[in-house]
């Protein structure tokens, strides 16, 4: 047993580390060991279910899926290889998300900072809020056809709402004392907004951006599943039409990887911009 006591400001932190004996029960109950067990058994069960055809021919083995993924890397589908399709989806997400955030974040901030804007926009916003963005797909197709514009439109709608909501609540939950400090130091309303409202709402803004991005991925997939000639959603639906489950699964895995990558990237930017934020986890 080793005990480490340290004191920072008025907090006392006590850390206790117990060294465990090297025994079988400790190895088995080690968390990282269990991660490996879980992962391996997941793959094994997947392989067994697929190879024994418990679900008929509608599930591919992990090996087949991997092979299909490497095949997609080289073979061109509809004029694009896998990287081309990944880029097609990511580009839509980024364009749509940027437009949605560029309108949504300022609107949310305006709503929180000015009660007249709030009184005018809030009821309208509440009217549209419960409508899922995917419900707009049909309208988007009626308005913009099945081209690029309709997909970007849905992503704009989907990413707009969380951006507004989080910008709004991010400013609303700022502690009054912070404003008092600026006023005591002789700042005017403009200083309050620039020095308190903007930086203090950043963590909430980033939470909104993460939600926006995950909704954007859902939207782009749905749009591509309904009508598209490129993108990851198209690969999945193509796999379905060709009855190739390995293609569907490969597409799903790639989506998971790309979405995780984007999430981690945004998380990194957030850490750079708001170093004071403490993680709840």
């Amino acid at each position, binding site marked *: 047993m080793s005990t480490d006591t340290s004191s920072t400001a008025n907090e006392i932190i006590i850390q206790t580390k117990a060294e465990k004996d090297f025994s079988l029960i400790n190895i088995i*109950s*080690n*968390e*990282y060991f*269990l*991660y490996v*067990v*879980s*992962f391996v058994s*997941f793959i094994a069960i997947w392989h067994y279910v697929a190879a024994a055809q418990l*679900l008929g021919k*509608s*599930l591919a083995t992990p090996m087949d899926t991997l092979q299909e993924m490497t095949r997609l890397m080289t073979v061109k589908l509809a004029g694009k290889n896998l990287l081309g399709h990944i880029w097609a989806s990511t580009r839509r997400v980024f364009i749509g998300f940027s437009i949605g955030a560029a309108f949504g974040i300022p609107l949310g901030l305006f709503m929180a900072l000015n*009660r*007249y804007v709030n*009184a*005018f*926009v*809030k*009821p*309208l916003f509440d*009217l*549209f809020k*419960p*409508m*899922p*963005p*995917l*419900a*707009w*797909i*049909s*309208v988007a*197709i*009626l*308005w913009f056809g099945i081209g690029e514009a309709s997909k970007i439109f849905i992503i704009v709608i989907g990413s707009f709402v969380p951006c507004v909501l989080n910008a709004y609540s991010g400013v609303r939950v700022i502690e009054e004392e912070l404003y008092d400090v600026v006023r005591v130091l002789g700042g005017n309303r403009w200083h309050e907004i620039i020095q308190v409202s903007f930086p203090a709402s950043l963590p909430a803004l980033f939470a909104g951006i993460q939600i926006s991005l*995950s*909704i954007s*991925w*859902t939207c782009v*997939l*749905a749009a591509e*599943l*309904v009508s598209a000639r490129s993108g990851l*959603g198209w690969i*999945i639906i193509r*796999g*379905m039409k060709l*009855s190739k*489950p390995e293609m*569907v*699964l490969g597409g*799903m895995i790639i*989506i*998971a*990887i790309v*979405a*995780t990558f984007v999430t981690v990237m945004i998380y990194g930017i957030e850490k750079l911009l708001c170093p004071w934020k403490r993680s*709840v*986890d």
Partner: protein
Amino acid sequence: MAYENVKTQNPLLLKILPFLGIGIFFAVWEIVVDVGILPSTMMASPYEVIKLFIDKLSNPHPDGSTIGIHAWISAQEAVTAYILAFVMGTPLGLLMGWYKVARGLARPVFELIRPIPPIAWIPLCIFWFGIGITGKIFIIWIAGIVPFTINAWVGVNMTNPTFIQMARTYGASDWQIFKTVCVPSALPMVFGALQISLAYCWTNLVGAELLAADQGLGYLISMGRRLAMPSMVVLGMVTVGLGGAIIGVIVDILEKRFMSRIRR
């Protein structure tokens, strides 16, 4: 008394603006369609939507069912999947928060499945379950289980360590601490997931029905597009929005009732 309630009178403009906003919105919508700035093949006016709604109450043509049946099917799918997600996700999250073995075994699979948007499961669901109700419930269930699990997990993690240490001092077993300390203190977070999960479920319900369905509100929307009837599309969207809002209010009432029992 040190404190005095001060009543502030809002300016008249603040009281009028909300109604003005909604009024202008509907007026512009009606005018834009009536004058023909947006052609009638692209947008329907509010009047046409209401007319179609009254018609659809009793008339199953041209999409096969009345609007009541569409809404009933959708609500059935969403609520079944939502309850299943709650019943399975919450215990999983609670166990993952407290027991290392549960966390070690469940976390990798959970983290593997989480980043895949539920919509991406649709093709596999069609392979496995056809376009019936089971596949849609599966997709909505996948969407709904994630917030339940994460919130329960975080809720247990956020338990005040002093309580746990005190329980340990009095010689409580792991299971007793879990049952009497961790679970009750995680409940606010668990109930907090009710609304989040509902929103996810409802969004993905529409997605699932757009692609694979022969009844339901999402199907109504996509039929409206195929038949080039913008009024039907808008009617579907409005009904989906209303339905989501109504279920949201019901969940809100339930949540408040549960919460009032916790916070004595």
